[in-house]
């Protein structure tokens, strides 16, 4: 483990920011609602990695785990509600394209 390149807070910080950038790219580039939500989930992976790396670097891994478990529970609930909203949107409008949704009235 000590010989690993990425087992270092600064390297993990860069990797986590790269993953958050990936999610941001998906949110900004795609028009499909499910794909946008996949981007949000990708961002959450980077945030979780950042939490654990910071907790390990500070020597407070138990506290970081506690925060991250709360974050995972919130993420699961948000995923449930968001995907059900996406399904209701599809049932109502027949499309998941955000450009078309913004043009519809009512």
């Amino acid at each position, binding site marked *: 483990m000590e010989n690993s390149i990425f087992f270092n807070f600064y390297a993990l910080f860069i990797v986590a920011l790269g993953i958050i950038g990936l999610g941001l790219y998906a949110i900004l580039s795609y028009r499909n609602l499910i794909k946008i939500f996949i981007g949000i989930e990708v961002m959450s992976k980077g945030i979780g990695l950042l939490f654990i790396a910071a907790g390990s670097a500070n020597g407070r891994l138990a506290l970081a*785990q506690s925060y991250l478990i709360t974050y995972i529970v919130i993420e699961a*609930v948000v995923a449930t509600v968001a995907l059900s*909203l996406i399904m209701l949107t599809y049932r109502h409008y027949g499309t998941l394209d955000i450009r078309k949704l913004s043009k519809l009235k009512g």
Partner: protein
Amino acid sequence: MLFDIIIVSAVVLLTFAVLSRQLLVSAIALAGASILTSIIYFLFNAMWVAVFELTVVAGLVTVLFISAISLTRDLKEELDTDRPLIFFPIFFALVVFGGVLILRGISGSLPDKALGAVDMMADFRIVFWEQRMFDILAQLMVILGGVFGLAAFFRILPGHLKAEDADDGAVGLTDSTTKE
């Protein structure tokens, strides 16, 4: 070396999840990345988070994604991006460059540059159940909020049932008239 391979594999799977044109492939790649992330947590001695990541994110959220994808159409034109693919590496490089700039700013305030100085004496159970008890209450409130939200989204009112019966009748009538 194992840690490096897992990190690189997770980043490759997440990139595949973002760039793939098929939603189902994206969801499965995301689940694979979640499994690799849980292995990373385990290698950090954060086994409780690893278990949560493996069961909740790699399991439950992936099932939700696949259910939502199977209940909607996979329209290829909606999965096209407005930006050319050259935008992706530029955007990625900009974000990483911003991270390097942030690191230069906070590098003096961090206690240790290397990982591994983990205080194993701080028991997770004491921190979770005694010091962060309000977090557990907040989790319960969030779960209840999600349950009530779903109940509100998918509630069936008596008016809706009557309207659906009327629709079914109308469909049957048109079918019978077309047969005649």
